């Protein structure tokens, strides 16, 4: 069953901040992993798990659940942290990230952890898997179950993405809601210098998709866009969510060098202090 709690936007913002702190702690403890993407995605994941998705942490395989595919598997720390916050498993387990025997693999593996829908990491294949799921659900007349897919901007260099884009448009897969984490960075640098993606909106529209463009660090905007997407029946929907990579941690924001690196101990302390005080907006660290 879905636990529809009436969180206020302020509640959700607080939760997203908690998830960011958990991400910093996990990554520092693991000593490797990606920082920028997961921090930037914290608001989207909070919106999805605490407001948008129909899911049940006590029954991850619930047959009526919505499906969330994470295509850019390297951002999985945000999913693990959000799942722990939502009650899928204890927060203590977050500290096993990337360790031998952990359910929290460096890149997500479906078979290891209930609640993951796919195994991902190699980029470009999440949208096609979502398309397959959407087709299958339609064949079974299960269109009340939505298929969400979170993907990165950099992975749209992959041809596989555009193969999937064409197929989803051809079959009018209106039960897919895709969210692009448009943070403008990838490993080698800014997306527009590595391999220009713009005009991204035009590209998706030309491929037959309905495009919504939002501030992906605005939780309310994410929730509204997902609602709006459900009303589009003729086409699949792409939400281009503009996010700040490294969001919430001043020295990580907008810097592509943090794409694939974790904070060291001193950096983690600094980051946590900033997150606890919401960048100085909160005076007491005990709030």
């Amino acid at each position, binding site marked *: 069953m879905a636990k529809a709690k009436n969180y206020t936007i302020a509640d959700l913002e607080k939760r997203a901040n908690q998830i960011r702190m958990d991400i910093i702690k996990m990554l520092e403890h693991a000593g490797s992993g990606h920082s920028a993407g997961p921090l930037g995605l914290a608001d989207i994941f909070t919106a999805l798990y605490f407001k948008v998705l129909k899911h049940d942490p006590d029954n991850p395989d619930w047959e009526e659940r919505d499906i969330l595919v994470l295509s850019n598997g390297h951002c999985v720390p945000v999913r693990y942290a959000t799942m722990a916050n939502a009650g899928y498993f204890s927060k203590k387990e977050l500290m096993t990230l990337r360790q031998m025997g952990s359910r929290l693999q460096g890149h997500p593996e479906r078979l290891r952890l209930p609640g993951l829908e*796919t195994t991902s990491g190699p980029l470009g*294949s999440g949208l096609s898997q979502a398309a397959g*799921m959407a087709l299958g659900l339609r064949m079974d007349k299960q269109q009340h179950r939505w298929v969400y897919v979170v993907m990165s901007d950099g992975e749209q260099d992959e041809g596989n993405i555009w193969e*999937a884009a064409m197929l989803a448009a051809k079959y009018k897969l209106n039960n897919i809601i895709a969210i692009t984490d448009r943070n403008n960075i990838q490993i080698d640098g800014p997306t527009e210098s590595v391999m220009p993606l713009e005009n991204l909106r035009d590209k998706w529209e030309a491929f037959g998709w309905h495009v919504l463009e939002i501030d992906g660090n605005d939780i309310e905007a994410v929730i509204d866009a997902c609602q709006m997407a459900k009303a589009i029946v003729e086409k699949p929907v792409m939400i281009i969510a503009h996010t700040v990579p490294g969001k919430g941690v001043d020295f990580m924001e907008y810097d592509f060098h943090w794409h694939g690196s974790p904070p060291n101990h001193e950096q983690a302390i600094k980051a946590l202090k900033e997150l606890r005080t919401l960048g100085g907006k909160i005076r007491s660290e005990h709030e």
Partner: protein
Amino acid sequence: MNELHLATRQKEPEPIRRGFGMGLLEAGKANENVVGICADLTESTNMHFFAEAFPDRFIEAGVAEQNLVTVGSGLAAVGKIPFVSSYAAFNPGRNWEQIRTTIALNDQPVKIVGSHAGLYTGADGATHQMLEDLSIMRAMPNMVVLAPCDSVEALKATMAMAADKRPNYLRVTREATPVITTDHTPFQIGRAYIFRDGRDVSLVATGTMTAKAMEAAKMLAKDGLQAEVVHVPTIKPIDYATILKSAEKTRHVATIEEGQINGGLGGAVAELLGENLPTPLLRVGMNDHFGESGKPDELLKHFGLDENHIAMAAHRLLMDHSNHKH
């Protein structure tokens, strides 16, 4: 000697891919969760029988093999039994990583069908004559690899795949080739079968080469040599017991396949004999080179895969290891 119910009379040759096409149609009738996806080669891979019978369960993905298998993975994730077909050169040639991550590691029971494998592809030339599929698919954990010997066995293999819970790869070929089995010949995933009893040399063959090995065995019999033909339709998991038992009896093993001997059936048998029962071995197949355009029979002859070459290889193996008494 026909407990296996092999064909006793000459039947019309038939392409192995046709057996897949008819098998998929049957599997589709038996189970409504069976779906088909193709990458612009629906008739060519013989998926059209299914597509015409079940248009609502058929998806045309266009010339996009990476999408083909990943859409398949998604369909399997929601309980479907997806068969995904294209030419073996592209599927699994082009989309191997997608298969590895989203099907094998992700454990989704997608049924991958690679047609136009091997030299029998003929005039299309080296680009389309997939010779490495058995090697690359055999290296992948959690993957079942099948290469039936004729259209009748391909039908059974297709039905068996639909019922199997694991990811599978099925190799099929274009050209009409001899039908050597019947509806009554047994087939089980993971089993090898002795198609002809012998004591002097084991001809361990797969796919189209099993029929050639049977022909070679007849030629060898005229020379006074009794060749045992071991048909290996499942390259992985390989039937250790049947192959080892034959090797123990004949003490001389030749593998025959229409593909690269490095890593293919030849590689698999070399590994299992090397570790369990070191035995003189000769691997007949493509030895680290590509094919070229030509008629299938010309190509098989040129690359040493016709019955004459196979018989000669058996003689050579026995001569080189002269402790054999004959």
